[in-house]
């Protein structure tokens, strides 16, 4: 039976999070899962996705923490003079210390959607306690293959032109400058270099792309097109859920995502008894 505990924590006692603590204490060296905010959505996640993910992983034996970064959701400011990246690293370090003290885990897997994926990347670059990360709609870059797949079918399809124009018109109508999931990516060479360094340090990484980001990712093959030989390494993997939206608004899509996350974790971070964390 998992117990969930709501906690105020952090270097300035400014963070709010919910720790999911499976009944059996985690064996030494086991991983805890930390779920980061998706855009401006508070810790429960879009359509309560983060609650569903953490509870499902708790049922498998993984300790979890879903929490709000500084100033998001119910968390306050730490009142330090730091860049946003420094704040995020410090907040996640606080989250790891909290989960370590409550669940005994010493290594962590970060999970984030959209800006949450970017923040997971920022932390994974130099945090030694991070053992892995699951990036939902994380970094990817348009390639020649992307452009061919995107534009060639449109040349002769009236339906696709209609949908393309509808999307453009709606997007223009919706542009009020407050898109909760708007993000910008760093240069591809920098990301490739940082991912290579993570893999060299032994991290395991999984990228899951939804069908909601076809504006920059439209085929599983694109991951290799983006990152070249890096994509061949066994510690990194990617998949695409064609047809879903960016935030998994439909239950059937959320179940598919949950199954993927659980499966990847159990393959890459099994527990000492071979079944759980």
């Amino acid at each position, binding site marked *: 039976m998992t117990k*969930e*505990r*709501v*906690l*105020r924590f952090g270097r300035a*006692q*400014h963070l*709010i999070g*919910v720790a999911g603590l499976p009944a059996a204490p985690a064996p030494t060296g086991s991983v805890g899962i930390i779920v980061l905010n998706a*855009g*401006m*959505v*508070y*810790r*429960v996640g*879009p*359509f*309560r996705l983060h*609650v*569903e993910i953490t509870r499902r992983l708790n049922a498998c034996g993984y300790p979890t923490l879903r929490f709000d970064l500084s100033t998001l*959701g*119910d968390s*306050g400011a730490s009142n330090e003079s730091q860049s946003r990246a420094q704040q995020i690293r410090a907040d996640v370090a606080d989250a790891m210390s909290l989960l370590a003290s409550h669940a005994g885990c010493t290594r962590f897997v970060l999970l984030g959607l959209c800006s949450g994926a970017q923040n997971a990347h920022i932390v994974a670059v130099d945090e030694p306690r991070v053992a892995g990360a699951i990036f939902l709609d994380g970094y990817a870059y348009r390639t020649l293959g992307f452009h061919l797949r995107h534009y060639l079918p449109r040349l002769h399809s009236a339906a696709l032109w209609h*949908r393309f124009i*509808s*999307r453009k018109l*709606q*997007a223009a*109508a*919706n542009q009020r400058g*407050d*898109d*909760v*999931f708007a993000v910008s990516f760093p240069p591809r060479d920098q990301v490739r270099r940082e991912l290579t360094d993570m893999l060299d340090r032994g991290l395991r990484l999984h990228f899951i792309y939804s*069908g*909601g980001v*076809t504006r920059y990712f439209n085929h599983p093959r694109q991951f290799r097109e983006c990152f070249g030989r890096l994509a061949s390494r066994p510690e990194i993997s990617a998949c695409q859920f*064609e*047809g*879903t*939206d*960016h*935030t998994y*608004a*439909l*239950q*059937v*899509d959320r179940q598919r995502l949950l199954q993927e996350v659980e499966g990847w974790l159990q393959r890459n971070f099994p527990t000492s008894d071979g079944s759980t964390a």
Partner: protein
Amino acid sequence: MRLEPAQPCQFGTGGDLFGLYHATSGSARSAVLMCPPLGQDMIRSHRVYRQLADALAQQGIAVLRFDYYGSGDSAGDSAELDWARCRTDMVTAAGELRARSGCTRLIGFGARLGGSIALNAATAARLSELLLWDPVLDGSQYVVALDALQDALRADPMRFGEPRTYEDAAGQWLGFPVGAGLRRQLDTWRAEPLPMPVRVFDSLPPTAAHDWNLLLGDAVNVTELPTAASWDELDRLEHAILSPDLIRAVGDYLRVAA
């Protein structure tokens, strides 16, 4: 008045309910129970609930925010959300707020279906006044509206490359599963006048059909907010509802009335 950090808490049977208590720096002069809306409205209005709770606490008014069973951080799957259980949870939360604040007289606040639940359970929770922000008053009309929005979401070209099947979208409203029980309970619910002061903060667009007096009676007071909130707009489904007007209006009213 200094702002105290909100205190996270778990209460109710087995600690199943999640709450955040916004204490005052001295003894509270009054207390407000904030009843959240359901589904995506709850996520969209989370920020404004926090801002309003902070503003009221700075005025010396203690506040409890909480999640119903099957919603937010409280225990239970989203599919287990139940109208009768929401009502019970609100009564439990009112008891928690009385115990924490020391106030016996409680004011209820609720937006959309949070306002409906507050109306439904106000007497059982022994509230003395209700402040409602664009409350849903006619359940069956709202069920029809949510079904239409869900069908529009299923085929929304901004969300899906191809329209999704009816099966994929069935039994859900805007990202959340809906049990047959909740649907039936909401479908048969209509607001009735209450023997307590009720004030409606109205930010619905002029085009929306809403006659607050029709169901709440002539005694209801209405404060019209200058900016319309974007409830029930599919293209704003994942945008936060922000309303400085609402925070100002509720704060101004309670500065005098509480």
